[in-house]
């Protein structure tokens, strides 16, 4: 079984790749997580269960990310979206009243009960994701990406892609990377940084984003990645 290199292109005004969120603060990493990208493939396949075997296979494949920002602008800070859950509803309307969060005893919370949440988004970036994988699973992924079973989105459901995600299968990494760089050039985008798996020269980060099991009881394990900066300003 030969090796193939699968190229995905993730582009949208807003993206959000959560990896460490707690409660009302929904964060995002600067780049797509492995669990996020594999989740996207599962969405395309229409696979909503634990997917243990499929994940065992795909988690072992090497994933590389190239991050591109618009040529003419510096990288933007994360967008913080402020949102209140359950505010402004009519207490006297039975149905509306039910949309207001309550305490665990079902009573009104002190001070009203609106819940404040902060949702973070990456603005104006495009990512090329390269998977070094075996041919058979790649072929299955390609079929699914061409006619996805469920909606494809970039981290959060509201982040709708502005480009087709599937961008080809290549025989070598160099060829695949060249294709990504060409695409970036056509779109007037510059390589800002890249993320490779393992410990290399650059900033090493430990992420808990390798999915072992999806579905209701999600399980993850750690991996170390190296972030290499390509633009110094």
């Amino acid at each position, binding site marked *: 079984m030969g090796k193939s290199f699968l190229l995905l292109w993730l*582009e*949208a*005004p*807003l993206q959000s790749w959560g990896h460490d969120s707690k409660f009302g603060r929904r964060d995002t990493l600067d780049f797509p997580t492995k669990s996020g990208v594999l989740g996207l493939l599962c969405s395309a396949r*229409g696979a*909503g269960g634990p997917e243990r075997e499929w994940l065992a296979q795909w988690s072992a494949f090497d994933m590389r990310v190239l991050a591109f920002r*618009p040529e*003419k*602008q510096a990288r*933007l800070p994360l*967008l913080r*979206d*402020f*949102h209140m859950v359950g505010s*402004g509803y009519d207490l006297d309307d039975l*149905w509306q009243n*039910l*949309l207001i969060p*309550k305490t*665990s005893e*079902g009573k009104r919370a002190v001070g009203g009960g609106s819940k*404040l949440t902060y949702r973070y*988004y990456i*603005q*104006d970036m495009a990512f090329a994701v390269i998977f070094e994988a075996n041919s058979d699973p790649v072929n299955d992924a390609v*079929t699914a*990406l*061409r*006619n*996805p*079973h*469920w*909606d*494809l*989105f970039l981290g959060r*459901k*509201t*982040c*709708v*892609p*502005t*480009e*087709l*995600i*599937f961008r080809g299968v290549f025989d070598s990494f160099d060829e695949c990377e060249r294709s990504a760089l060409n695409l970036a050039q056509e779109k007037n985008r510059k390589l800002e940084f890249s993320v490779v798996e393992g410990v290399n020269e650059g900033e090493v980060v430990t992420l808990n984003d390798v999915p072992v099991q999806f*579905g*209701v009881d999600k399980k993850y394990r750690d991996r170390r990645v190296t972030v290499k900066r390509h633009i110094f300003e």
Partner: protein
Amino acid sequence: MNAKEKLPIIEYHILQSFPVTCLNRDDVGAPKTAIIGGYTRARVSSQCWKRSVRLALRNSGARMGIRTKKVETLFHDECIKLGASEEQAKRCSELMAKELVDDTLLFISSSEATRFAEFAKEKLFDAKQLEGKEIIKVGKKAVAPAIDALDIALFGRMVAKAADMNVEAAASFSHAISTHKISNDIDFFTALDDLQEEPGSAHMGSLEFNSATYYRYVSLDLEQLKDTLGKEGLKEAVRQFSEALFIAIPQARQTTQSGASPWEYANVTVRKGQRLQVPFETAVKRGEGGYLAASIAALKDYLTKKKKLCGSLYGELACFEWGEDENYSIDKLISEVQESLGLS
């Protein structure tokens, strides 16, 4: 999972212009923004417009689910209707409710509640015979005929304790963004004291606002909707959802700034394949017809080009344009979309 038989998606690309407004506020009361293609844009978050659509759906008479912790009461009333005694209804509903929720809200439709009561009846309203796993199974089966809870089908539901009752949302909203660059403006105001003794204002303040032509992208996954509602409910669901999209407007600062602007232009496409929104990465420049005419032209050009570039992957089945022909009403648009889907 036969790819060929999968129902298509409906994509709504909507342009809507608002004068002085602050449709969606951040934590300091200023209109929300984002930076796209190098320029600051006005933004209305997806959650915000979705909430308005949810409220509009209810006001237009669509039957909705109830999000409640008081499932017990619902079950209780249904059991009584089916002939249980007060004592039986109390014990059965208590037990079934305990199996489904503890501290969380359950989003449930009335037909589902009936189904649970019927299950209790099958067991002769004997609480001892109601077994945990079986109750969850009932929940799993009862999801499919949730025809009387359009909002559950459209916006999804999560039941932490009984994951089988989870419903994936069929509708998806992008954040609405202005097609052009904006900078928030400041409205300085003063208030006078009616019992004034000295000259001058008694209070000064400022409000931030902007005016923008928004691009809204909304998609509806009909296959997902069918999984939840069943095929019979689809045609009516498409009408109710489209109408709510047309009517709903975010509520922030409506009493002082009253932004009641309807759709100006819409491209509604029925297609297969991966959904795609328009980035409006190049900010539209104002021309003869303000930002609107330029935005319509930019949207049309972009979609035409994208369709060609994507070739067979675009999978277009039907496409409708609303807003330029005055004889083409929203009702007509909706009925033509329904017709193109072949739903009876």
